[in-house]
C-alpha cells in the first residue's frame, strides 16, 4: 500500500499539495487501490511520519517538498527495502529514493512569454509568497520568458512577507496586485500559495490578467486568468503510485520534455490566448525540449540573468 506525506501547507492548498492529492486520487480511482496519507503538523514530525509509514510497511512512500530531503537522508538508509519518492529534491545520494524535481523555470518561461505577449502596457508582474530560492527560481524563469518576447518589458516583482502568514494573506496579495497595477502591470503571475487567491481575485476585479501556478487555476475566474503554470506533481505522484514497489529510483527531472511542467489551456482561457501567441510559445517549447534554447536556472549560481532579487 503506498503512502503520501503532504507538506506543511496541507493537502488542500489549491496548488502543490493539492496536485499531489489529485494524482493519488486519480490512481486510487483507476486502480481501486487505497493509499495512506498524512499532513505534516510541524518540522519535527517529518522524520516521525517517515518512520511510522516505513514501519507499517507502506511502500512506496511519496513525500512532498524540499524540506523532506533532510529527514529522508536520516530515515531512508534505515529501511533499505522501502522505496521513497520525494518531490522537489534532486541532490540526495540514496539508493532507495526516487527524487523528482521539476524544471519550474521552463514552465515559468513559457507563461512569462505569454504574459509579455498579452501585456498591452509592456509591464508584467510577479508576486511570490516569500523570498526563498524556490520562488526566485519561478520568478527567474518567468522574467527570462517575458524578456525573450519583449526585451524592453518591465517586470515588477514582489514578495508577500517573511512569516508563515505570507502564504495565507490574500489581503496583502490584493494590495500587491493593486500596487503592481498602478505601476503599469496588466498581467500578473502569482506563486504564493493561499495569497495567490487574493492576487487572482483582485486581478479579475480590476480587469487585468493573472497567471495561476502549480495546478490549473484557469477556472477560478474564467476569462480572467491568462493561463496557469502547470507543475505536474499529480503526474509524478500518479506515476510513482502506479509503479508501486518497483518504482525506479534515482534522480528525475521533469521538465517540458517530460511534460512535467507546462502551461494550461482550456475553455476558460481559450479566448485570451491567440493562435499567434500559442505558436510562439510552442516554438519556444520545442526549442527548449531539443536543447537549442536554454532557460537559466536560478539554482545554478544563485542568481538570475533577467531579474534581480
Amino acid at each position, binding site marked *: 500500500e503506498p503512502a503520501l506525506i503532504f507538506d506543511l501547507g496541507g493537502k488542500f492548498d*489549491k496548488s502543490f499539495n*493539492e496536485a499531489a492529492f489529485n494524482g493519488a486520487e486519480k490512481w486510487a480511482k483507476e486502480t481501486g487501490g487505497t493509499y495512506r496519507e498524512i499532513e505534516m503538523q510541524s518540522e519535527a514530525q517529518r522524520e516521525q511520519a517517515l518512520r511510522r509509514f516505513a514501519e507499517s510497511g507502506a511502500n512506496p512512500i511519496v513525500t512532498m517538498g524540499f524540506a523532506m530531503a533532510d529527514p529522508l537522508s536520516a530515515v531512508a538508509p534505515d529501511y533499505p527495502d522501502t522505496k521513497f519518492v520525494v518531490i522537489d529534491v534532486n541532490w540526495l545520494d540514496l539508493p532507495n529514493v526516487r527524487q523528482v524535481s521539476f524544471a519550474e523555470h521552463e514552465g515559468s518561461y513559457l507563461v512569462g512569454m505569454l504574459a509579455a505577449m498579452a501585456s498591452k502596457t509592456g509591464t508584467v508582474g510577479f508576486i511570490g509568497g516569500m523570498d526563498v530560492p524556490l520562488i526566485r527560481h519561478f520568478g527567474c524563469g518567468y522574467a527570462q520568458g517575458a524578456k525573450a518576447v519583449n526585451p524592453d518589458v518591465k517586470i515588477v516583482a514582489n514578495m508577500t512577507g*517573511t512569516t508563515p*502568514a505570507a502564504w495565507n*494573506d490574500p489581503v496583502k496579495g490584493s494590495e500587491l496586485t493593486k*500596487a503592481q497595477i498602478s505601476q503599469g502591470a496588466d498581467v500578473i503571475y502569482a506563486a504564493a500559495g493561499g495569497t495567490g487567491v487574493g492576487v487572482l481575485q483582485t486581478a479579475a476585479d480590476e480587469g487585468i490578467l493573472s497567471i495561476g501556478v502549480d495546478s490549473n487555476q484557469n477556472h477560478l475566474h474564467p476569462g480572467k486568468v491568462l493561463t496557469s503554470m502547470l507543475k505536474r506533481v499529480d503526474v509524478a505522484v500518479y506515476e510513482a503510485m502506479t509503479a508501486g514497489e518497483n518504482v525506479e529510483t534515482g534522480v528525475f527531472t521533469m521538465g517540458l520534455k517530460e511534460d512535467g511542467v507546462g502551461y494550461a489551456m482550456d475553455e476558460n482561457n481559450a479566448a485570451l490566448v491567440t493562435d499567434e501567441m500559442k505558436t510562439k510559445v510552442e516554438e519556444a517549447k520545442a526549442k527548449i525540449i531539443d536543447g537549442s534554447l536554454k532557460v537559466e536556472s536560478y539554482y545554478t549560481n544563485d542568481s538570475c540573468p533577467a531579474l534581480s532579487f
Partner: protein
Amino acid sequence: MDFLTILQILDSSVRLATPLLLACLAGLYSERAGIFDIGLEGKMLAAAFLSAAVAAVTGSVWLGLLAGIAASMVLSGLHGLASITFRGNQLISGVAINFLASGLTVLVAQDWFAQGGRTPSLGGDARFTGLTLPFADALAGVPVIGPVYAELISGHSILVYLAVAAVPATWWVLYRTRFGLRLRAVGENPAAVDTAGISVVGLRFAAVAICGLLCGIAGAYLSTALQAGFVKEMTAGRGFIALAALIFAKWRPWQAMWACLLFGVLQAIALRYQNIRLGEITIPVQVMDALPYVLTVVILAGFVGKAIAPRAGGEPYVKER
C-alpha cells in the same frame, strides 16, 4: 513620486487600515470598560469565516455580515463569561479565543465545504463592492480635488465608510453620552460605578458586545469586501497590530484612527516600494517588509511616550469572595 502615486498609496492605506481601525475601535470599547482583549484576532477570524460561509451559501452579503457579527459576538460573550462572570484571567481568555477561532474556522470550513478550510469564492451579491459616491465621475476632471474625491474618497466598500464614521461616533458615545460616561468610569474604577447603583457586569457585557460587533464587521470586511472568500488564518496578525494601534493611540478614538492609518500607510509604502534600487545596491525586500514595524518602534520611542491603560483594566472586579 507623482500625485497619482500618492493617491494610490493612500487609497491602499485606507483599505489596509480599515480592518485595523474596526478592530482597534472594538478593542477600545472593551478595554475602556476594563476588559483587556487580546482576542481581537480570533474574533475577526471567526467573523471572516462565517460571513464568507453564509454569504456563499445564501448568496447575500448582508446575511453574511450578520452571521459574521454573530460569530464574533459569540466569542465576545465567551470572553465576557470568562472574564466578567467568572472573573477569570482576561489574557488567558483572549489567548484561548484566538486558538479556538483559528482551529474552529478551518475545522468547520472543512466539514462544511470540503475545500481545505476555505469557503467557495464569492461573487455577485455575496460580496461587498465599491460604492461610487455621488458626483465622483463628474468631479474627476477637476484638478487635485477631483482625483482625490474620485480615486481616494469614492469607490470603497460601504464598510470602509462605516469604519470611518465609527470614529466620531465612538468619540461621541464615549464623551457625550451617559453610556460613555459609565463605560469610561467602569474601566477606571468599577467600585465607583457599583456604588453609584449601576451594574458593573451589565456595563462590561455591553462593552464586550460592542467589541464583538465591530470585530465582526472587521472580519466580514476582510473576507467579503477586500476578498471574495475565506482562507485559513487570513487575518494574518491584524488583530495584534490593531491592539498595538490601540495602545499607540492611548485608548482614544481619533488617535486610534491616526494610528491605524499610520500602520496602513507604512504598509502600503512598503508594499509599493519593494526592491528599491539605490545606485548599485538593491535594498532587500526583507528590509522593506520590516520597515513598517521598525518605523512603528521608532515613532513610539521618539514621540509617543508613556501610554497609561484604563486603571481597572485587566483586573476582574471582585467585591468579596
